[in-house]
C-alpha cells in the first residue's frame, strides 16, 4: 500500500484499525446508517429537482401576480389598438371623403409618432425628477435604471438635461454612456444636477420612482439627492431631427412602399 520506508509500528497499527473500521460489516448500526444515508440522498435529490422547475412555475407567487398584471395590461393595450385600427379603417375607406379622412388620419398619426420620435414638442401631466450628485456616484447605470423605471410606469415623452444646461429628448434609440465627470446621452455631455422631465400619469410615475429598492432608494445609497415633483403640466421642448433611417427599410410584409 505504502512504500516500505514506513517502519513505524504504531503507524501500521493505526492504519490497520482504520481499514477494519472501513470494512463493511452487517451490524445493525451500519445498516441503520446506510438507510439514513439513502433517505437523505433521496430527499436532497427531490429538493434539487423541485428547485429546478423551469419557467413560470419556479417563480414566487408575488412575482406571478405581477406578471399577470403586466400581461393583462398588455392585453388591454392590444385591444385598444384593435379598436382604434377598426375606427381608422372605417373612416379611411369611404370614397372621396375617404381621401380627406386619410389625410386627416395621416396627420394625426404623424403627430403621435412625432412625439414618440421626438420631432415634436410635447405637453401633458407628469413629473420632474431632479438628481443632484455631489459625490459623483451617479453614473449612466443609475440614469438608465431611472429611464427604464419611468418607461415601465408609462412615460410617454421624456427629456433629460443638466438643470441649467443642455437637454436631450429621450427616444427609443437613446443610449447613456459614462464620461469624465458626467454622462453622455446620445452624444451630449450632461453633468449633475440632472433633470428628467416626464409626461405620463403623474401619480404612477412618482410611485414607481419611490418603490423600495427603486430609483430614489438607489440615489440615497449613493449619497445623491433625488427629488420628484408631480406636475399637472410638463412641457418638453427639446427636439430631434426628422428621422432618416439609412439601413432600416420598411419591411416588405405589410408596409411595402
Amino acid at each position, binding site marked *: 500500500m505504502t512504500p516500505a520506508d514506513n517502519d513505524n509500528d504504531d503507524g501500521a497499527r493505526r492504519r490497520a484499525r482504520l481499514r477494519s473500521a472501513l470494512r463493511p460489516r452487517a451490524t445493525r448500526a451500519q445498516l441503520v446508517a446506510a438507510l439514513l444515508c439513502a433517505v437523505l440522498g433521496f430527499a436532497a435529490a427531490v*429538493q*434539487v429537482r423541485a*428547485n429546478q422547475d423551469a419557467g*413560470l412555475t*419556479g417563480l414566487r*407567487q408575488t412575482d*406571478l*401576480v*405581477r*406578471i*399577470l398584471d*403586466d*400581461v393583462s395590461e*398588455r*392585453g388591454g393595450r*392590444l*385591444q*385598444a*389598438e*384593435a379598436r382604434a*385600427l*377598426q375606427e381608422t*379603417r372605417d373612416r379611411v375607406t369611404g370614397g372621396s371623403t375617404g*381621401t380627406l379622412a386619410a*389625410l386627416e388620419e*395621416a396627420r394625426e398619426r*404623424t*403627430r*403621435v*409618432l*412625432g412625439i*414618440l420620435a421626438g*420631432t*415634436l*414638442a*410635447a*405637453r*401633458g401631466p407628469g413629473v420632474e425628477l431632479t438628481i443632484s450628485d455631489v459625490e459623483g456616484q451617479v453614473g449612466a447605470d443609475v440614469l*438608465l435604471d431611472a429611464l*427604464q423605471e419611468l418607461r415601465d410606469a*408609462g412615460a410617454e*415623452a421624456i427629456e433629460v*438635461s443638466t438643470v*441649467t444646461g443642455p*437637454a436631450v429628448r429621450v427616444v*427609443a434609440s*437613446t443610449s447613456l454612456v459614462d464620461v469624465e465627470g458626467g454622462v453622455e446621452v446620445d452624444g451630449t455631455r450632461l453633468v449633475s444636477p440632472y433633470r428628467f422631465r416626464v*409626461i405620463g400619469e403623474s401619480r404612477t410615475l412618482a410611485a414607481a420612482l419611490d418603490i423600495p429598492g427603486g430609483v430614489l432608494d438607489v440615489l440615497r445609497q449613493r449619497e445623491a439627492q433625488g427629488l420628484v415633483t408631480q406636475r399637472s403640466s410638463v412641457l418638453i*421642448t*427639446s427636439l430631434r431631427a*426628422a428621422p432618416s433611417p*439609412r*439601413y*432600416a*427599410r*420598411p*419591411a*416588405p410584409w*405589410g*408596409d411595402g412602399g
Partner: protein
Amino acid sequence: MSESPRRDASMVLLTSLGEDSLDAGYARAAARRKQGAPPTRYGRVILASGLVAIGLLLTTAAAQARDRAPATAQARSELVTEIEDRTGANERLEASLATERAAVSDERRAGLRITTQGSRLARVLSALESTTGASGVTGPGMSVRLTQVTAEADDSDGDPRTTDAVEGRVSDRDLQTVVNEVWAAGAEAVAVNEQRLTSLSAIRSAGEAILVDFRPLSPPYEVQAVGPPSMRAVFVGGFGGSYLQVLRDYGIDFTVEDRDEVELPASAGLRLRYATTPSDVPSGAKPGPRDRTSTQ
C-alpha cells in the same frame, strides 16, 4: 506547559482544546466499556426521550408542510395557467393586429397618393414609422445572443446550497445594458426576442422572469439590431463587449454575429394617452429656452 504561564495561559487552553479535548472523554468511555458496565438507566431514558422529541418535531414539520403545500401549489398553478392563457390570447390578437395594421397602412397610403401633399406626408410618415417601431423593418445588422447555463451551475457539485439566483441567470440589468450598448453602437432599430423596442418600451424583471413591454420572455435572449456595418465592431470593442466578457464569468454565454438581413417586427400599441402637442409651440420649433418653468 512552559515556564512563563502569565503569557501563555490562553495559548495553553487553545492548544489543549485543539489537541486533546476529546481524548480524555474517549478514554473514559473506552474504560467503562472494557469494564462491561452497562449504560445507566438514567442515560437510556434521556436518549429515548431525546429521540422521541426529535421524531415529534420532524413529524409536525412534515405534516405542516404538507398541509400548506397544496393550497400554495394550487394557487400558483392557477396563476401560471392564467398567465399562459392570456399570453396566448395576446399573441393571437397581436398576430391579427399585424395584418390589420398593414391593411390600414396600405389603405392610408393609397388615399394619400392621390395628392402631392399626401405623398409628402406619406414619406414623412414612413420614416417616422420605421424609427419609432410602428412598422416592421428589415436591413443589415447583428444579433447578440445570451444563453444561461443555470442547470450546469446548479449541478456541478451536487450541493443545492451553492445555487445562486444571480449565477448563470440573465437579469433585466444585463439586458438593459446590452441593449443600451447596441443603441450606442449605432443601431437604428432593435428587438429582443422578436419584441420591437420603442421609446415606450421597458425591460424589467419580475423575480427571475424578464418582461419586455409587459410580455414575459424566456431564455435564451436574442437582441437583434439593424444598423451600420461598423455596429458589431463598435459594440464588441466598447463597454458592451467587456460587459459580456464579465457575464461569461457568471455562467452566461454569448455570441455576437453579423447578419446580412435582420427582420424586426412592428411594435404593438403605440398610442399616447397623456402627451399631446402643445398648441402654443409651433410644430418643428427649434430647441427653445428650456428653463421656462423655473425651479428653485
